[in-house]
């Protein structure tokens, strides 16, 4: 190591092959109970539909499985190990009580089609969570069905379309700022809308005059992330909303960055018509290596008729139930009711925080981002000097002069024991370093991060080549992504028998 870090050291780490490489006929990790009904003649029952062989499925014992996945796990970084400042991802602490309550028997084993009479617990959870989320967002109605943020967007835009359709014209376009996350345009396309780019102004915000120019009766909605992906709050949000509404358009808010707002301001209050939340960001459900998520969509009254079916309703006898008969609904976006297990976790998180805790959480998230900004200002280029909310976006402009890009420094940051920041976007910043610490970081960890980032900047000055070779301290060095894409090997294959 060129520079020393107080954050991490190297230690011995177990190797582990693919599970298939451990397989051997006759090993087993399962045991079924004896059958209490007669055995059956499979061939007689299934005929040619009978499967004879399961190919190269592994045969291993339980201890090998424990070791396999335990060893694999030790190769991962995680929130539980330290700061995970991926911008836009809100990698906050995932409380353990969430996991405990999600596993309570009646919730973990509830069947989606069990009679309403014995589903009151689950319904009550959905109802309570909905109430809380509506209060938090300041919206009027909600669906919990979408499986993640992107599906929330889809659901929201479907409702936008259904709304316009109900007025006689679905319209043609959706406006999306150039700073937006990739799912926004991808979703608009899925819903059959043309995407029109909206250029950000020099402060990183929507340029009101541009919006004015682009907004017309062909535009169904503006998809806005607020705070946007620069971590900047759209100060003229009220004007934006007014402009959209004036031309009959709707304001969609991508709620990925709600962690900057909860308890401090409500999108429903500043003119948003429809928005999604990411329970796996703002509401602490675990990321799990990429999912599952949950993307509830909250709407204003005007959009309520279009919510996906079913919705939770209260019957006259005060019991809860599902209502399917909603003629204007956009329909289902997935089977059953959504990622219920995530509802349980998100609600547990809300309970654990209460109004005071949620507000403090937001304040700490914003405090942390500004502390990092202060610590790294000058060391890294700050393309937009507009105030930061919950995240701060630097660029690699200074370091790029030495040939070192954001991704190279990201790899080097790994050597310092930190997960890197987001490098992939916003596209309006060339070579972005998008840093979102969340509220879960103690000052100590932030100081270590700032120290590491400064040290890397120094390394870039002193020896850029060295930084380009990072990471050095991981069990494998930099992986060849180009080769992976050029000659994709997407599955294990048994060696051809010789």
């Amino acid at each position, binding site marked *: 190591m060129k520079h020393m870090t107080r954050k991490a050291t190297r230690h011995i780490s177990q190797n582990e092959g693919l599970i298939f490489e451990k397989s051997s006929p006759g090993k087993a990790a399962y045991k079924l109970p004896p059958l209490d009904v007669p055995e059956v003649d499979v061939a007689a029952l299934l005929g040619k539909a009978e499967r004879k062989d399961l190919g190269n499925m592994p045969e291993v014992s339980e201890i090998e499985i424990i070791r396999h996945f335990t060893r694999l796990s030790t190769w991962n970084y995680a929130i539980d190990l330290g700061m995970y400042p991926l911008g836009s991802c809100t990698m906050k602490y995932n409380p353990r009580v969430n996991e405990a309550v999600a596993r309570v028997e009646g919730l973990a084993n509830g069947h989606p089609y069990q009679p309403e009479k014995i589903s009151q617990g689950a319904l009550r959870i959905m109802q309570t969570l909905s109430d809380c989320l509506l209060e938090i967002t300041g919206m009027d109605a909600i669906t919990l069905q979408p499986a993640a943020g992107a599906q929330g967007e889809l659901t929201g835009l479907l409702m936008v379309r259904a709304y316009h359709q109900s007025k006689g014209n679905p319209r043609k376009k959706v406006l999306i700022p150039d700073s937006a996350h990739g799912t926004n345009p991808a979703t608009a396309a899925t819903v059959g809308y043309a995407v029109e780019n909206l250029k950000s102004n020099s402060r990183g915000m929507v340029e009101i005059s541009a919006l004015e120019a682009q907004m017309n009766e062909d535009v169904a909605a503006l998809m806005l992330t607020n705070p946007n992906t620069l971590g900047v709050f759209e100060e003229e949000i009220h004007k934006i909303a007014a402009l959209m509404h004036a031309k009959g358009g709707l304001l969609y808010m991508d709620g990925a960055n709600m962690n900057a707002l909860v308890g401090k301001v409500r999108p429903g209050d500043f003119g948003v018509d429809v928005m999604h939340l990411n329970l796996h960001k703002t509401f602490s459900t675990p990321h*799990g290596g990429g999912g599952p998520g949950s993307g509830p969509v909250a709407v204003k009254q005007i959009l309520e008729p279009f919510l996906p079916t079913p919705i939770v309703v209260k019957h006259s006898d005060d019991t809860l139930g599902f209502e399917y008969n909603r003629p204007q609904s956009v329909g289902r976006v997935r089977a059953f009711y959504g990622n219920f297990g995530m509802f349980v976790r998100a609600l547990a998180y809300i309970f654990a925080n209460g109004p005071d805790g949620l507000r403090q959480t937001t304040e700490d998230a914003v405090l942390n981002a500004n502390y990092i900004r202060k610590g790294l200002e000058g060391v890294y280029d700050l393309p937009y000097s507009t105030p930061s909310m919950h995240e701060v976006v630097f660029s690699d402009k200074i370091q790029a002069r030495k040939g070192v890009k954001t991704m190279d420094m990201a790899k080097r940051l790994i050597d310092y024991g930190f997960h890197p920041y987001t490098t992939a976007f916003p596209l309006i910043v060339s070579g972005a370093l998008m840093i979102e610490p969340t509220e879960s970081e103690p000052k100590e960890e932030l100081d270590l991060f700032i120290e590491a980032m400064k040290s890397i900047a120094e390394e870039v000055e002193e020896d850029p080549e060295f930084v380009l070779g990072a990471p050095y301290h991981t069990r494998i060095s930099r*992986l060849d992504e180009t080769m992976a894409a050029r000659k994709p090997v997407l599955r294990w294959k048994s060696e051809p028998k010789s």
Partner: protein
Amino acid sequence: MRYLPKSPADREAMLQTIGAGSINDLFAPIPAEYRLTRDLNIPRQMAESEIVDWFRQRSRENGEGYTSFLGAGAYLHYRPVVIDALISRGEFLTSYTPYQAEFAQGTLQAIFEFQSMICELTGMEVANASMYDGSTGAAEAVMMAARLTGHSSVLIARSLHPEYREVMATYATHQGLPMSTVPFTATGRIDLKGLEQSIGSDTACVLIQSPNFFGVIEDVDAIAEIAHKHGALLVVSIAEAVSLGIVEPPRSADIIAMEAQSFGVPLGFGGPYCGVIATREKFVRQMPGRLAGQTTDSNGKRGFVLTLATREQHIRREKATSNICTNQALVALMVNIFMTIYGKVGLKELAKQNLAKTEYAAQQFGKHAKVLFSGSPRFNEFVVETSEDPSAINGRLLGHKITGGLTLKKFFPEVGNAALWCCTEMTTRSAIDTAVGVVADSERSVRSMNDSSVEEQVR
């Protein structure tokens, strides 16, 4: 505030460093008129013990302790404890999508193994890292087929899970993909003649489910032949993954969209589950969702990365193969561990037990009521037609702490008083016998009512 790692002094010191007078200075960009100056009206901060108690109470109101005969796309199989022990490790639970491969090899290798096992089981060449669930997976598979063929209409078996059909409809509406439905015959299988008639040169794909919603195994090869003859692709949805242990996978399909919930994922009142799409290698660049691929590091060591990202929204934006971003990674890991535990021999044995339980149950029910479609091969579900409305029978079964089969009237009015029953390795003979007893009583009392009304008429 037990999750917040700051003391008041820390906050003070940080504000000072930043040069802010108070925390509210940092919220200045929010127009004052919108700032919330009151507490949110949500429940007060609760102790952990209160939270646990609250959810335990909800659990008791939620069918705790009932024996269930419900399947229909959500199956109760035994979940080996190893699964939760492993997925609870913070390194899996609290990591993000493995964008930084060198720091996420655990997740990446696990995905690679998942993809490989899905390929082994489905007989396909490539599989992705997961989709939201079986229903959205099926919809994405159909959109993929439309892109691959350039055709623009879709044929859907009526024996597909009705909620999958609804989701398909939602997704297809704005894709310019007209959908039509192919009925099933008295065998419970797709109407091949009807299929021949409906299919056309503009058909992008035929979407079927096998075992289908009634538990009946379709003649996939025959369907594939028809589809392929017309230049359409065959998309097969598999909702009960355990069937793959004993039922030949739909190898003649072009795309398989699978719901893997049966493989170690809790019922969880309907989610999170684990969709996955598998297909032929040549179709991979139109596949939605993440893919892990093998590569080497700068020293030639084997490693894994997310790959073919140019299909995805974060690179391709409105031209992506799908808008999916967050998937079902941790659930896919459950599935992965389940497949590893049962493996080559265990999955077969498990499936065989499901078959045996179901056969026994169908035989027993068949003594008292009519088991529909019983001439066709089936896996672990079957349809029982009763004289009485099955909802009424189910109401009585609740008294035995049993949840009876799914009443089909809502989804399939044409089948009349019928319910879809499911047995797995978890279903005990004694539960089956109890349920059969209640159905038998129902039939007897309807008969005696009929007899007496006949008598009445006679009188």
